């Protein structure tokens, strides 16, 4: 089933990705991520001493501040901050630097659809740039469900608004295992099939959602390869923190 997308992409095609790290000199880690016209800047400061009042001092704490392109900070920004914070908490190894706070600042430069996944990807790359210890990377993708049940990936803002539902999915990155027996699996499924975060909007059928998951996983493999190439090309300058 072919679908006409305005920019001529096929249903599984992602927009051109671009990522650069260490663009801000005073931040301990920074990255700029763009998917088509959506562009997000992420900066990481930390780890700094001390945690906030309600947080557990035996673990590192992650704080996220989301700055929209225009307008005041409202409930949408608070929700994105909470989702981003919990996603990053699940990928970072929090027991390595207890009683510290790492601040992640997200600045939206342009919003043309799939904003939260771009921000998660940018934050992840900024954390790598800052040298924060992580278990695996978070690879985020947006899937839209059209009224006909067709799933398209990486929508633009117009497409997001027209479609009946969309889902933001975050997976761990795909594993290239050096072990002879292959990558570890849980319950018969490889680790990269597990969902770290899922955020949906709009009503879709349960089968549509599982279809989105399949497409999302396939796309996350492509994104993981992009991240791997990008990280291997540009080695991190490790003389920033402290």
């Amino acid at each position, binding site marked *: 089933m072919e679908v006409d997308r305005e920019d001529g992409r096929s249903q599984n095609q992602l927009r051109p990705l671009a990522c650069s790290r260490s663009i801000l000199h005073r931040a301990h880690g920074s990255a700029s991520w763009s998917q088509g016209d959506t562009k997000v800047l992420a900066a990481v400061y930390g780890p700094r001493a001390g945690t906030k009042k309600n947080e557990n001092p035996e673990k590192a704490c992650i704080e996220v501040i989301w700055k929209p392109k225009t307008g005041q900070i409202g409930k949408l920004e608070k*929700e994105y901050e909470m989702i981003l914070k919990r996603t990053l908490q699940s990928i970072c190894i929090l027991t390595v630097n207890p009683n510290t706070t790492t601040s992640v600042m997200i600045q939206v430069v342009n919003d043309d659809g799939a904003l939260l996944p771009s921000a998660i990807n940018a934050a992840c790359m900024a954390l790598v740039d800052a040298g924060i210890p992580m278990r695996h990377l978070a690879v985020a993708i947006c899937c839209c469900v059209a009224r006909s049940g067709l799933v398209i990936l990486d929508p633009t803002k117009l497409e997001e608004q027209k479609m009946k539902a969309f889902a933001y999915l975050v997976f761990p990155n795909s594993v290239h295992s050096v072990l002879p027996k292959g990558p570890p699996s849980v319950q018969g499924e490889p680790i990269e099939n597990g969902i770290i975060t*899922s955020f949906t909007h709009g*009503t*879709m059928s349960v089968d549509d959602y599982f279809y989105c998951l399949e497409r999302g996983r396939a796309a996350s493999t492509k994104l993981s390869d992009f991240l791997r190439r990008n990280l291997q090309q540009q080695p991190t300058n490790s003389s920033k923190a402290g």
Partner: protein
Amino acid sequence: MGLPNASGDLSTEVEVDAFRRLFPLRFFEKHLLESIRPDARPLGRARDTTIALGAVASANGSALAKIGSTTMLAAIKMEVMAPSIEIPDEGCIAIDFHMPPICSPIVRPGRPAEAAPVVAKQLSDTILSSGMINLKELSLVSGKAAWMAYLDIYCLDADGALFDAALLAAVAAFSHLEIPVVSLNDDGKIVLSEEQGLSDREPVNKEKRKVNLGSIPFSLTCILHKNYILADPTAEEESIMETSVTVVLDSSSQLVSLYKPGGAVLAYTSAIQDCIALTRQRVKELQKILEEAISGMEVD
């Protein structure tokens, strides 16, 4: 030092309550091995749920929902306003969720709860995208006047599963909502008519009517911990095992929302299917409870 050794030595000597505070995760895991939780619920069962309609007499629609100890009070006030120019034949719903300091020791007047704006936005998204309320029903005179429904939900006791209880209270309040009678007066303004039968005023709507509800959304929050799935967590369970999945299904089994905000445990397909199955059961339970509450009100 060795914490595991310490708890092993102490577990025979320390009282249950002290063990619960000192080693909360071990306390819960001991229960999970027997497929039960500290409050004697099996893993897939939700707490006792009650709905009381008409809790706030001065509001146009209200409900008090309790899931276990979590208590939510929802109230709807209707006001007439001018509709927007782009959509002249639709009304509007404004949803707000408050967590006053009464609900939990963590919330203080100067320190608002972090969860409040997040739950408010989630509720707003869920209710508007589920198609429960057709906004065209809230229109009075196309282009000139339409209803604005202010839905306020107050959390009176925060004991876990806040979103579930808030959604249930909101849905119950909408099912109790009665749109008041209004008429057009000489200046062309809409006024509330107190009595019917005033000669020079023609009522715009003849009688107090209920809103037609489309497919109603119901939700269930589950916690994932290793291989266990715990339905309807209490606040203690949520603070110890942080990975939660909230599934919202509507009465025609369409998925309105599947919300998993991060968390250390990854959700595989089998876990998601189990959560959706638990939610389907819960939807049937909640539909029954809501219908009983509505028919109880009508008898009065």
